[in-house]
């Protein structure tokens, strides 16, 4: 058992404490108006008062993020595998995908809402679209970079190209793909929130816009805090799962 001072929980708690203290000092020294920057305790009070209001919004945003992640990760991986397996797909599709990334996701948000409606679908699509590219590129790079020696060995065993892809290249790419998935975990909420800002009737993003319109800054901060906790928890859960699944990955940090 590690001493408590060495655990990550301790470091997280100390960091939060430090940030809260800095925030509190900033508010009380500069005496900014409360409607510009509320004090941490005011936010906490609102957070507690609003807990039952925020809960359904949290569930909606979480659902959007989870479905967005599933669709984004699955389609990114699928396209990466197609590009590795079929040369024409790689040659024709890669430039198109690169070009599509030049379109800011923020700019197409209204169009997506127009196409997919005010409900869940447009936000799921937003989240999926925003993580698609990081997933695609890390998967593609991971699949491409599998060691030639392994491929030679599999060829010497007369393995088919498809089998090599699934049994050698795919597992060998997992450590690199994992960084793409970790990245997606923190980026996907951005997609969902933008979608909610543009047009929605529920979700944490909607709640923030609603509070903003009424100058209820403390409410906004309460929703923001919840969103941060959600993102961090998602990252933490994914990180732990990935570490366990990819047990052979080396960690050479001293």
């Amino acid at each position, binding site marked *: 058992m590690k001493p408590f001072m060495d655990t990550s929980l301790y470091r997280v708690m100390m960091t939060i404490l430090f940030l809260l203290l800095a925030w509190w000092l900033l508010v009380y020294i500069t005496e900014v108006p409360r409607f510009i920057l509320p004090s941490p305790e005011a936010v906490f009070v609102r957070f507690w008062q609003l807990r039952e209001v925020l809960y359904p919004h949290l569930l909606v945003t979480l659902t959007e993020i989870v479905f967005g992640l599933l669709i984004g990760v699955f389609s990114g991986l699928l396209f990466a595998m197609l590009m590795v397996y079929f040369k024409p797909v790689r040659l024709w599709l890669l430039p198109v995908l690169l070009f599509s990334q030049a379109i800011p996701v923020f700019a197409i948000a209204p169009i997506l809402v127009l196409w997919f409606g005010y409900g869940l679908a447009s936000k799921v699509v937003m989240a999926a679209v925003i993580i698609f590219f990081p997933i695609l590129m890390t998967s593609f790079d991971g699949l491409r970079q599998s060691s030639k*020696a392994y491929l030679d*060995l599999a060829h010497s065993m007369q393995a088919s190209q498809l089998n090599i892809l699934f049994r050698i290249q795919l597992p060998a790419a997992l450590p690199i793909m994992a960084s793409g998935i970790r990245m997606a975990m923190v980026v996907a909420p951005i997609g969902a929130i933008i979608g909610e800002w543009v047009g929605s009737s529920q979700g944490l993003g909607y709640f923030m816009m609603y509070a903003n319109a009424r100058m209820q800054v403390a409410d906004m901060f309460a929703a923001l805090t919840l969103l941060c906790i959600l993102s961090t928890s998602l990252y933490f859960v994914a990180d732990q799962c990935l570490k366990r699944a990819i047990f052979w990955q080396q960690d050479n940090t001293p």
Partner: protein
Amino acid sequence: MMLSNLKRDSRVEKYDITASLQYAEKADFVYHGISLSLSLGRVTCLLGQSGCGKSSLLKQLVGLHRDAFLAELSIQHENADTQRAEDFQQDIAYMAQQDLLLPWLSVIDNVLLAYDVNRPLFSKKANCNELLKEQALSILDKVGMLDQAYVSVLTLSGGMRQRVALARTLIQDKPIILMDEPFSSVDAITRHKLQQLSSVLFSNKTVLLVTHDPLEALIMGHEILLFPIKLAFDPKSPQSQLSVEPLVSLPKPRSLPPRVIGDELSDYHGQLMRIMQAQL
């Protein structure tokens, strides 16, 4: 007994192999019109310095030179017509310089890799098949790794990993085994043990062992071939591409492999070193 065995040499069946390899249109030939023969059921050692092209030749024999500009390979069996290279390659088990164990698989799954990379997607793993599992376990027993059949390969030492790689090569049950400096990365004692072990395990197989170590060739080989140094191809004199010196067959010790390191072997070792130095 030794003499009678040496006499039998003339009656041993052989594969006669001729090969050329060039990576790009304008590049030098790695080798051109090189020819060697493999005696069936014997260990042939291909000895040469680093970068001389011996590994390339081995890989070409395995069929791993699909991206080369020009790769010609003809294989003839004494008692048959020209054999298709593809058929020859079906009979090969290949063992590379690194052990190439897959880190996400256990020892037994690594041993059964040849079956796992050939089964259809979504079918059961090879070690679910009782027959294959028993086979794998008995081969792991032969290489002395039975008690570690189900551990992750991450926990194994370099020597143990090579034992697993040996088992993976052996379970494919192919008549021809091509090895590319398989024991170059382990310490001297482990190497010695692995050489003895693989000599026993591959005793009735046709083995081509590529090595840069004269001593390894002397310990393991029934026949030792010295790989020529590559000659630059000079387009002005087309003859130059043919003037690559043939693989030199070297004098070999009178005892059978695996040989013990002793006076006899050190004499040959000295000879071999002199020949290889003269090549430079």
